[in-house]
């Protein structure tokens, strides 16, 4: 009798613990259902729309996100460089390449919660397309570093994991058909402070 009760208890613990835990884990993972990958960049075009999958919906509700609409823009997040290594705040990176059509774009260095990194300096850890120097062939080369760099300098700083968030505003690529042949800039690691 006691053995049966214990077995029932075991089943219940596995069911409730496993079920609840797996939902919690799935909502914490950065990668998810409905992601679109272009190079190192990931976007969730469906997040925050009524057409989103249940995992995105639960994440929106839990984190209180108000996602950008299609007519507003589309965000891409990068967590690794072209070599496959995780982005670090103490390292210097070069972000170079062409950018897809948009009215303008913004790029910033983010922490785990995708908020802008705190550098303690008055210069924001963000760049925007009206304020960058372009190459003759319209490519853009950006240096992300914690010390001043020539050309386009994206200020970073501190230690730990870092993400780059690249958002295009008023862009045709936000419509689902436009995403097929978009190319985004590459992220190359230059070196790290010891």
């Amino acid at each position: 009798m006691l053995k049966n009760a214990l077995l029932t208890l075991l089943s219940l613990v596995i069911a409730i613990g496993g079920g609840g835990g797996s939902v919690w884990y799935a909502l914490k993972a950065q990668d998810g259902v409905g992601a679109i990958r272009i190079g190192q960049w990931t976007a969730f075009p469906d997040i925050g729309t009524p057409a989103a999958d249940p995992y995105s919906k639960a994440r929106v509700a839990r984190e209180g996100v108000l996602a950008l609409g299609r007519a507003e823009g589309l965000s891409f997040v990068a967590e690794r460089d072209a070599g496959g290594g995780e982005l670090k705040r103490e390292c210097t990176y070069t972000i170079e390449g062409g950018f897809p059509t948009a009215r303008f774009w913004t790029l910033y260095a983010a922490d785990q919660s995708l908020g802008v990194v705190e550098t303690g300096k008055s210069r924001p850890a963000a760049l925007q397309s009206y304020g960058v120097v372009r190459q003759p062939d319209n490519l853009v080369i950006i240096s992300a570093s914690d010390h001043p760099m020539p050309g386009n300098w994206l200020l970073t700083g501190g230690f730990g994991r870092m993400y780059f968030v690249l958002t295009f505003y008023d862009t045709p690529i936000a419509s689902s058909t436009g995403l097929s042949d978009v190319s985004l800039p590459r992220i190359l690691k230059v070196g790290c402070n010891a």
Partner: protein
Amino acid sequence: MRSSYAAMRKLLHAVLLGLVGAGIVHIVVLLLVPEFSERDAWSRLSMASDLYRMTRLDAEAGGAPVVKSVDPLFYATACRFDLGEGVVRIKAPGHVPFWSVSVYDRSGHNIYSFNDHTANDGVLDAVVLTPAQMIDVRKDLPEDLQGAIFVEAPIEEGIFVIRTFVPDDSWKPIVSSFLEKSSCELQDF
């Protein structure tokens, strides 16, 4: 020997039953999270301010941001509305480099969005209403609503968000005052 074999079978049975149950619990919890979340955008905004009250979402206005407004080069403001009480009109005078707005339903799904290129002369003047209210308004369109953008939303409670681009520090006061002057109010017909 036989009894320990039976016990193992019972244990295996219990574990398998638990795993199947875990699958069911996973699905149920996942579908219930949006229903019972107290951390969604609506709940956070309702703790910060009333209906039809514009609330800044960025940290610039002092204090921690109410709802995480992601882009550091953007300012944003939001108001909650209830179409059950009537038609809501959102206005913001003046011009800024870029603005975009989104209408969200109660659970934070983006229902409709547009930006300053859509608007008449780049001025933000929008009316949010239900399809039924739209029929009433169409019968006799008031003079001062001629230039407004009508957003037909099949919802009752919702959130209206205005986002504005701040290209550099010199734009901060201009963009701030644009958002401060924005209004969100019930409109009578």
